[in-house]
């Protein structure tokens, strides 16, 4: 039986998503945000980290259109390959809690087609923990493409 490790990220009170264990680089607690005027609602803030400008995604806003920004005091810094430049870049995901490293079995796997439409666009596949469906999100899709769900600023 094949196993793999994944980080579980609590993005709002109800929802957890997963990323590969090598994709998550660092956790920033109580970050200092910089607002960027006229950027999409789900990505309107950046932070400075190690002299890098990190765009910060509010995944609840991206998927459900509901901001839970004020309850989030952690940022998971993930690395991805920019699909246009081929360069490795960093992106931040707002979290409500500290990520948990979890070992996933093959038999927990769920087909991507079983995810709802809103998750399918940003996910590679999914798995189940008890009855909870957890999408494995594509960091690259999230950060290096314009929002699939257009908000009023896009």
């Amino acid at each position, binding site marked *: 039986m094949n196993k793999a490790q994944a980080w579980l990220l609590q993005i709002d009170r109800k929802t957890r998503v997963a990323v590969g264990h090598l994709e998550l680089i660092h956790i920033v607690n109580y970050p200092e945000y910089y607002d960027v*005027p*006229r*950027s999409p609602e*789900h*990505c309107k803030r*950046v932070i400075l980290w190690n*002299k890098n*400008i990190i765009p910060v*995604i509010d995944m609840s806003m991206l998927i459900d259109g509901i901001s839970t920004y004020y309850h989030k005091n952690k940022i998971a810094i993930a690395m991805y390959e920019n699909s246009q430049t081929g360069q490795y870049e960093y992106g931040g995901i707002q979290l409500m809690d500290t990520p948990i490293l979890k070992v996933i079995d093959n038999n927990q796997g769920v087909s991507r087609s079983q995810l709802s439409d809103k998750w399918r666009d940003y996910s590679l596949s999914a798995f189940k923990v008890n009855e909870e469906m957890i999408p494995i999100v594509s960091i690259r899709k999230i950060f*290096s493409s314009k929002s699939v769900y257009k908000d009023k600023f896009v």
Partner: protein
Amino acid sequence: MMTNVEPKNILCKDRETNLMVITIDNNCYYIPQKDIFSFESVQDLDVEEKLTNSVGRISIVKEKIPVYCFSGDLELLDRPTDNIKICVLLNKINIALLCDDIRVANVINIKIVEMAECMKSNNSPVDSFCLLEGDNSIASLGILIRSLSIKNYINNYKKYNNS
């Protein structure tokens, strides 16, 4: 006309990274020096002659240039705010912008960083950041606007903001 020009030299490699700081409603935006043609007095602003979304026109030589005014978060306003003191004529695009203040950016190192795709918007003049390092080696963030992106933003403003 320039205010608060700071005496230190900027050590930059090219003209793209020679930056000015424009203050609009207490918000600072960085703009390449090469994108600025001149500064004019707001006294010369003719508010009677308006194009769509502009606040008036200013006469430069024999040309009448449309003048625009942004809020602090870069929304186009239909009339000048009270703090406006300077009219900045942007290079090559025949557009002027009102601002509270303009000065040379006083930084040692500037790195221009393109915005991640997920942050970009067709309805914004911002497409890049500047990572700034001053005397104390502490990095800080600036938001960069360029004359061409300002022109595109103004031209498309009605299309994306027809509320």
